[in-house]
């Protein structure tokens, strides 16, 4: 943790993460994740795969997939592109950490504060999701990661446990609108 004097502001503007509870569903703002994008340099796929396996302890996942090992989680975002995530408290400087590990095999960009992340837990999650996006969250396998549109916003939906544990990553500037959409859909469905 850098020892500076600026206080962080959570995406929804509160002092503590917002949590909304429904029967069989909770929606939790999760600011404790550092994110860096990883994009393979041209022709460096093998080098990157090797460096990534060493750094993350897990192979880079394929399309629509997520991989996790220890502090690290990775999900595929496009051809030759991934997001790497790790706990914010220990990895705030994530882009430098990842760049140091991957070297010139990849372009790495800090993405931590580009996104707001909501963790969605509970068996009623698919009932909320079906009023938000096209993904078939009832049949989404654990370890899936998909890009989709929610509330007109480009978003990622990660499935941690089939049917009951998901994360939604959306643009941080629209956090309040995205949160409103999640809560409105949950209220509607539950």
């Amino acid at each position, binding site marked *: 943790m850098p020892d500076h004097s600026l206080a962080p502001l959570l995406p929804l503007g509160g002092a503590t993460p917002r949590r909304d509870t429904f029967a069989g569903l909770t929606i939790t703002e999760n600011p404790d994740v550092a994110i860096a994008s990883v994009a393979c340099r041209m022709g460096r796929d093998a080098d990157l795969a090797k460096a990534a396996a060493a750094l993350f302890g897990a192979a880079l996942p394929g399309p629509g997939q997520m991989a996790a090992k220890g502090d690290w989680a990775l999900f595929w975002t496009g051809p030759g592109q991934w997001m790497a995530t790790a706990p914010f408290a220990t990895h705030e400087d994530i882009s430098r950490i990842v760049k140091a590990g991957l070297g010139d095999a990849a372009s790495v960009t800090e993405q931590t504060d580009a996104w707001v992340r909501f963790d969605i837990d509970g068996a009623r999650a698919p009932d909320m999701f079906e009023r938000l996006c*096209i993904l078939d969250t009832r049949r989404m396998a654990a370890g899936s990661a998909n890009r989709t549109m929610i509330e007109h916003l480009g978003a990622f939906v990660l499935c941690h446990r089939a049917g009951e544990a998901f994360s939604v990553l959306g643009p941080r500037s629209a956090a309040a609108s995205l949160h409103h959409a999640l809560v409105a859909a949950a209220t509607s469905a539950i």
Partner: protein
Amino acid sequence: MNQMNRINGQPLGGAHGTGVPRPGQVNRLAGGQIDHAKTLTFRFDGKSFQGHPGDTLASALLANGVRLMGRSFKYHRPRGPLTSGSEEPNALVELRSGARQEPNTRATVAELFDGLEATSQNRWPSLSFDAMAINDRLSTFLTAGFYYKTFMWPKAFWEKLYEPIIRRAAGLGSLSMETDPDLYDKGFLHADLLVVGSGAAGLAAALTAGRTGAQVILAEEDFLFGGRLIAESYRLGAGSGADWAAAAIAELASLPNVRLMSRTTVIGAFEHGITGAVERVSDHLAQPAAGKPRQILWRIYAKRTLLCAGAIERPIPFENNDRPGILLAGAIRAYANRWAATPGKTVAIFTNNDDGLRTATDLMDKGVSVAAVIDTRPEGKTLAGTTHLKGATVIDSAGRLGLTGITVRLGTGETRQIACTALGVSGGWNPNVHLTCHQRGRPVWDAKIAAFVPGADLPPGMSVAGAAMGDLTTSGALASGAAGAVAALDALGITAKTADLPEAEDAPVNVTPFWYVKHGKGRAWIDQQNDVTVKDVKLAHQEGYRSVEHLKRYTTLGMATDQGKTSNMAGLAVMAELTSKSIPATGTTIFRPPYTPVPIATFAGRSAGKDFRPVRQTPSHKWAAEQGAVFVEVGMWKRTQWLPRPGETHWRQSVDREVLATRNSVGICDVTTLGKIDVQGTDAAEFLNRVYANPFAKLAVGKVRYGLMLREDGMAMDDGTTARLAEDHFVTTTTTANAVGVYRHMEFCRQCLWPDLDVQIISTTEAWAQFSVAGPNARKLLQKIVDPEHDISNEAFPYMACGEITVCGGLRARLFRISFSGELAYEIAVPTRYGDGLIRAMVEAGKQYDAVVYGTEALGVMRIEKGHAAGNELNGTTTARNLGMAGMVSKKKDAIGSTLSEREGLNRGDVLALVGFRPVDRSRPLVAGSHFINVGAEATAANDQGYMTSVAFSPNLGHSVGLGFLKSGGARKGETLRAVNPLNNEEVEVEVVSAHFIDPEGDRLRA
């Protein structure tokens, strides 16, 4: 997942009731699918009535002896329900009151609830006495095509006189003009098989498919599952059709892979096998529960769709066939069997098929008197218990506000009067092919049932079963539904076993085509919702309309909200007869979604009012809101427009103060909204060199360069600054408006134009909070923020320098020495979560310099004073030359747009050039959009010299200043022109000056 098999309808009940007459419910029978034990009170036209759970508004009114429910569209004829379903043309009411008032609601599908309020439409002063019924007397003038004939002249009268009169006299319900208070959702469903309709075919299909474990959705528009099974009296296996349906639904409800959706109408079959459906979640309630939607528009992604939508009975038009009390025979049967109601105590039947006879039998079994059965067929079995008149037709009816009797023409030619208060008409059944035609499929003629059936060109993934495909028997429906499910699943590699099916009736309908009664001179109604008669069709033919599409538009047949579900066939038949063609040769009109009317609000979903689109907030939003900032929408962003201080009553006071304070000392502005694109890779410099018109290859690390991006056609696309943070790492900025467009353009260039370049891009707009700090004291302020180990003196960090630094004791940050205002200025960026902290820290640090935070208005004033182009100038029609930046388009390299920017016409000597303007009379304001005209010349387009793009009041100069494009502008400084605003008939004399009103030499920004 219990949610998946929830039944949103009520469970099917068995037969209830005692048959004991209740007050007012003079036409209430025993039995049916209503709960006689519970009473619901409702109001129609202010009068109180009683009904029961399970009733529709129409069934409850009929049970109360009310047949008259509305007035017709054009002639204000008294009308009652024709049908018992969603195909209803006549019984349209305004449901509810206040903001929830909904016009044109079909009473036949409006589920009764306690406290329901309905009002009849299109009548004044009352339903029984309607002054506008005078239209009926003027019918000679209101025939087909009357709009085109009567109201053509004089032209000016149309809008002001004729149209308002017609709109008042004709038309149906009215709008409340209040904002809809309800919520509407949109959603997405996925399934292996979607079964549309839950009659015999649909239930057999759902059972067959459900038992395999496949994902099945069963959609039913009614609030009860069962389709005709719950409207008929015949046995199905050991019990009634309703019993079998209830058992089937109970089994389906127990299967976690089956989703039962009642009150859900599949409204359209769209591309790629996707269907749309509207679920009426709360329409059966007085109002939706808090936070719950009124309706949901579902987009259903089913791998296969089995259409089991049944059939719709068709009437036989005859003179005065529209009186309240004249219904389709199948509808009367449904009212009696399902809703325990009859439209009259003495009923007659007019039929051309055996199904009509079934209505007579059922009614007699229920104790309703059947006065006669008028059968167009001269042959066939004779029905016992009533007078069965064969080879006979109904040729007229009587009764002012409701049926009192009919005139029958017997086979012998003699006529007979028969007293009755209801008449059931059956002209045969039309398979409900609507959804099969939404992808331009054409139905084909089946002579056996004298009706169109689905053709071969169905929407992708769709198949059809049951009555919808022309099998009008219950046994056939069960068998084809099960077989349809087996076939649909087989195509998906799922093996299904046909569900065991009960014994069911298999009587053919024995229909003999009989399209309309030719006897009689009066009006025989085909389309009761749009008041189109047999005569109108004949008139259209007489006037030369031959195509059914022309017939439809000229007569408006089938163009009402019911889309002619009960009328199109009769219209076609009349047309076919007139043209001596067969009905299939005459063809049908195109069927279009939605199948039944859908509120616009349902299509809008949540995108209404303040939630019309998401809002993007800047990192300083919370702080600015605390200060009472005025926000402005910039795309989806809300940006601070200005920050009023106590005592300021006009925006100009705030903006002038912000500008002067910045120019005199220092100002801070949130510029996070400008697009930021991270560009990396070994070829990143070459990539930018090709994207931008000006060179980037040699930009030094630690330096920033202004870039101008052209479109392929040579027009300016966007501009911004690009900083080189490392050999292989750049950060490009875009304008706020074009952030997405430029990113998309760069992705296209990267992936499609130059896939051989090693370059990776990603947006970082959201990741960094970025602030402009501008003014003579900008450096002094920042030196209190930037950690001391980073030297930002003019020597160490000159104009156009950039670097990665730390602030406030170690936070990673980026600093760019760039200026939009023309002042000594920096842009400082920190990770977004610290943006709020940073602006608070900078405001605190700036107190000793009287620092201000300024908004977009002050930003605009300062860039106009400085002569910097923005969106108003980069308007898609301007070139680098127009903008005074022709020199930036490098001739030493190829870049997008550079070749076409050399087109001769874009480089003539007199092309528009960006210059400044000031009013000759310094007290006068300028108007953006004004066109320049030479003094003494006429203000015409031919004399146009250019146009003003941006104007502002300059508090530094004390007068208005403007930027604009002027022919040969660069050579005309000092000239006086007129800035003409023809919209307001105003003009201002202006002097042509340099666009750089402030610091033309750039000394301030290099300070």
